[in-house]
């Protein structure tokens, strides 16, 4: 149980909460953003809001890979579900995300072969075991997962696997944070940066936020102690007007990141402009296959016709993802939109802000 209980110890947490209160006294209202969905979940699951001083607000950011995948991506995945002799392999939390008219779960019920995998390597294995089928992997996620998919693609190429391709929906984090930082509608005083993304890209990737926008960043771990310490460090930097990028999660994250993983990632993929659900297009924020790997690009290899996109009315996932609205601001929250019958992606993913609010803080608006 090492690395779990130690970071959930009640005494240490209470001491931190006290320091937080002291630090907050020097400040007006402060708006912080936890970018990563796993932080959102951790904050809700451990009831951490009760430890934050009243003038410190934490909002959720666009760091849930399922939540930021646009409707068109789900609709394309649904089109692959309907394609004959095709197996769609996916990470679990994609299964219930609603597209324009359907979801993977509904397609599965209608007879599609949809299989949840825990790793891209499992998808390769499914392709090997089903040579008569064409296997599409739904490749979503940030810099954390993209290298693993790149590694699988390299393995598929090296072993000559003929029936495997990926529907690439990968996104990269720093351009999205730059977009938030330069949006005048959004005012964030400090970022809790996504820890596992940071393990790959390194702490220095956020330097521009501190240097150009004057916004301090802390890369904090997921445990209660980590989160509270991260918030404390942000408050201190804000009060001292000394914005920096500090690494609290030093047991995992370095300044320079994981160069081996980055090398694999950019061997297979290259940056492109991409669409984020609710936020819109962000320059350089997505990944697409490099020319040499077009054979593994499902959309080039096995083109499908995709239904026209239709976005549900009333859903404010976009504002939630940008941190300008909270789940409870949405008229659909807890009524039309529940984890059982989600309208927006933020309610589906276990890391979505709405799902976290619903599950751990109750359905009442």
């Amino acid at each position, binding site marked *: 149980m090492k690395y779990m209980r130690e970071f959930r110890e*009640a005494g240490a947490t*209470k001491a931190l909460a006290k320091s937080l209160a002291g630090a907050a006294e020097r400040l007006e209202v402060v708006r912080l953003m936890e970018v990563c969905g796993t932080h959102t979940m951790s904050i809700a699951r451990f*009831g951490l809001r009760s430890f934050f001083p009243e003038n410190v607000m934490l909002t959720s950011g666009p760091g849930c*890979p399922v939540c930021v995948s646009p409707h068109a991506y789900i609709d394309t995945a649904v089109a692959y579900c309907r394609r004959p002799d095709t197996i769609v392999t996916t990470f679990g939390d994609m299964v219930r995300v609603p597209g324009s008219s359907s979801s993977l779960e509904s397609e599965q019920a209608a007879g599609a072969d949809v299989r*949840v995998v825990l790793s891209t390597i499992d998808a390769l294995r499914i392709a090997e075991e089903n040579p008569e089928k064409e296997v599409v992997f739904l490749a979503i996620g940030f810099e*954390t997962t993209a290298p693993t998919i790149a590694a699988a693609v390299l393995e598929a190429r090296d072993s000559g696997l003929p029936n495997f391709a990926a529907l690439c929906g990968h996104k990269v984090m720093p351009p999205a944070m730059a977009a938030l930082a330069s949006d005048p509608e959004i005012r964030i005083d400090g970022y809790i940066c996504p820890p596992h993304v940071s393990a790959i890209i390194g702490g220095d990737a956020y330097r521009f936020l501190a240097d150009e926008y004057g916004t301090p960043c802390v890369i904090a771990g997921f445990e209660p102690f980590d989160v509270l310490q991260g918030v404390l460090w942000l408050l201190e930097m804000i009060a001292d007007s000394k914005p920096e990028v500090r690494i609290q999660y030093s047991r995992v994250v370095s300044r320079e990141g994981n160069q081996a993983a980055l090398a694999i990632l950019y061997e297979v993929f290259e940056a492109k402009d991409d669409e984020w659900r609710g936020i819109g297009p962000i320059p350089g924020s997505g990944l697409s296959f490099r020319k040499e790997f077009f054979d593994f690009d499902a959309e080039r290899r096995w083109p499908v016709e995709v239904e026209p996109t239709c976005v549900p009315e009333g859903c404010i996932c976009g504002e939630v993802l940008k941190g300008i609205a909270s789940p409870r601001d949405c008229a659909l929250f807890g009524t039309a939109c529940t984890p*059982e*019958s989600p309208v927006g992606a933020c309610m589906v993913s276990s890391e979505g802000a709405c799902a976290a609010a619903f599950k751990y803080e109750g359905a009442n608006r």
Partner: protein
Amino acid sequence: MIGSGGEKILLAHGSGGKAMHELIESLLLPAFRNPKLEPLGDSARLELGGRELAFTTDSYVVDPLFFPGGDIGRLAVCGTINDLAVCGARPLALSCALILEEGLPMADLEKVVESMRSAADEAGVEIVTGDTKVLPHGKGDRLFVNTAGVGLLPEGRRWLPGTAEPGDVVLINGHVADHGAAVMAERERFALRAEIRSDVAPLNHLIEALLEAVPDVRCLKDPTRGGLASALNEIAAASAVSIVLDEEAIPVRGPVAALCELLGLDPLYFANEGKVLAAVPPRRADEALAALRSHPLGRYAAAIGEAKPFDRVPLSARTLLGSHRVVGMLTGDQLPRIC
């Protein structure tokens, strides 16, 4: 409308959570409505010559068929026995219906049948009738098992599961989530260093010992599909109380907790097949705990929470840090997260 899929059955309709309840309430209950079905208990309550009988059935479709700590056969026997036992009944006899897929290795079937016999022996119950059907290859998934059981309520014993009252202490007879975690680890072929074993076991002797020691146990429930969280939500709703769990007191084995952390899943929602929850009046809590702990299946029994007057949410937990969070019903299958 039932669930999110509109007109089609989704996997969520079978996972013991909200979707399944909606299916029962909106389709099955109206179709079959009668006073014996209406309570929707673990067993139906029948009267015969002044005595009370418990009658129940359950089908088993687990993948994989064999997992550490048990198999589909042991599960089918124990599940039905436990459904009778949580009503306070002593199991009398079981049936066994096998639905086999053409091509199932005979050796697998022999193993499952032997395991059913051994679980029935453990419980001291006989399998007295049965049925066998074979489906063509591809029309079934190797082996499905259905069991039904009847039990007799001992004279003078109150029919359970009953309801909890404010002040009652909530007990469990040991570690949660072992079964769900064992099946998932086996199915996904995780290479774990520590083996996670299912807790599947017949609870009739344990429950008998508890009820002998503390006849005024107010409420019993086996937290199977949907886990501890769903079972306690149901108890709270049926009893019009709020249950507050002490998260730190809930026994979870290290490897199970680690697996859940890794996958972003909550052990409170994993199935148990050898666990029973009991709500007992506070003055009897120590005796009840002692009775559970004196049985091999209750060695790690613990008091994990308390029933209070209803206050906004049916179930909540005091976290390790002293803060509170809501613990809802399971909604759909738990899905492993991306990163």
